[in-house]
């Protein structure tokens, strides 16, 4: 213990001296206002004095504790007085630097104390130059956790991270560690757009209907049922394997419905892979994924209530 203290103390004092001068310069650069600099100087000298006192007193105290106490003391005067006194233009720079410092302090406090030594040394160096400090802080974070991304937006702030940020972070990590997955994600579902042609004024032809069924690996009847139920109309496949639908529909509208079909009945609900099989099992359809093996039931196709749109006289004529 005594040895360690001996090793430890001189460096600390040196650092503090360095720190003081270095910080003055930086503060001057960043702020350019005499009052502010004075304030900062005061705070720093107070600070150093405090710390020196503490060192004298704390010789026998556990080093770990020592550290945390000092850091807290350093932190408080910096934050409070400087934040209040700095000019708006200098403030931003200062803030970020301060945030970095506090952040490091936190991390150091959590670490065990072997590490502390190396880190405190770094920290002292850093205080010479703000830019250097920021750069080093980044380096250090990289050392500590490879996964920590520079885009992580809560680094350098005391605020709580949001759920979205955490989600982004975990996805970034996953992408970093599994380049294959990124490739898999890019492999998108490419499909020809539906060819939709008007037939007269009352009918629409979906020319490549059968082809699309093949690319989707689905029974034409299943897709037909879905289309007709969604569009609330009737229709059938003609001799040229094109679908004739009653009513006027645009390509965009058919595309929308197709997209919904693919989402519900083609792509896996778990991993979104289009490599799936639709099986009928006791009145229910199940979507079995060939990629991830998940199996889930899909909603059955029901056309539901159909309003009477044909001319009532015509219906009466038919039935009677």
């Amino acid at each position: 213990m005594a040895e360690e203290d001996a090793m430890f103390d001189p460096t600390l004092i040196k650092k503090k001296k360095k720190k003081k001068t270095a910080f003055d310069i930086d503060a001057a650069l960043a702020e350019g206002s005499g009052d502010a600099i004075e304030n900062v100087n005061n705070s720093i000298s107070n600070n150093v004095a405090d710390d020196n006192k503490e060192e004298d007193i704390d010789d026998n105290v556990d080093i770990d504790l020592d550290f945390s106490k000092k850091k807290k003391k350093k932190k408080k005067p910096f934050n409070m007085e400087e934040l209040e006194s700095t000019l708006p233009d200098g403030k931003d720079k200062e803030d970020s630097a301060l945030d970095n410092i506090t952040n490091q302090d936190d991390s150091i406090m959590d670490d065990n104390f072997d590490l502390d030594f190396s880190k405190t040394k770094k920290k002292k160096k850093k205080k010479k130059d703000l830019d250097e400090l920021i750069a080093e802080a980044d380096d250090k974070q990289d050392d500590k956790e490879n996964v920590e991304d520079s885009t992580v937006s809560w680094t350098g702030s005391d605020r709580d991270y949001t759920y979205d940020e955490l989600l982004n972070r975990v996805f970034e990590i996953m992408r970093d560690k599994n380049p294959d997955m990124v490739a898999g994600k890019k492999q998108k579902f490419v499909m020809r757009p539906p060819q939709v042609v008007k037939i007269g004024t009352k009918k629409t032809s979906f020319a490549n209907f059968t082809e699309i069924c093949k690319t989707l690996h689905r029974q034409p009847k299943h897709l037909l049922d879905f289309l007709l139920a969604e569009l609330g109309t009737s229709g059938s496949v003609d001799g040229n394997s094109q679908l004739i639908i009653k009513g006027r529909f645009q390509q965009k509208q058919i595309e929308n419905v197709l997209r919904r079909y693919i989402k519900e009945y083609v792509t896996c609900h778990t991993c979104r892979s289009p490599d799936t099989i639709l099986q009928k099992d006791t009145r229910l359809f199940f979507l079995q994924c060939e990629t991830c093996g998940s199996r889930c039931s899909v909603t059955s196709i029901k056309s539901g209530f159909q309003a009477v749109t044909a001319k009532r006289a015509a219906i009466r004529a038919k039935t009677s």
Partner: protein
Amino acid sequence: MSIQNLQTFDPFADANKGADDDVQDGLVHIRIQQRNGRKTLTTVQGLSSDYDLKKIVRACKKEFACNGTVIEHPEYGEVLQLQGDQRENICQWLTKAGLAKPDQLKVHGF
């Protein structure tokens, strides 16, 4: 003396009622149908029978400036029928009036 908790309250009464209505999944299906020409029709199926559909249709007609009726269907119960493409309107109105939650609404059509 009777035990208050054990009286003739059937917690599954609602569930049973839902079953014979064939309101299959508790969803409100909002569909669109083409009529002759550019004309369309919006149907709303699956609204709880606890609500007075006639009142609802009256309010909707006024709100969306369209005509509409309530149709009694043997399988699907009372169905709301409005003229024109009122899918957006009815979704907003139903959620605003608190008659259905957004995730209960299922909009069909193009």
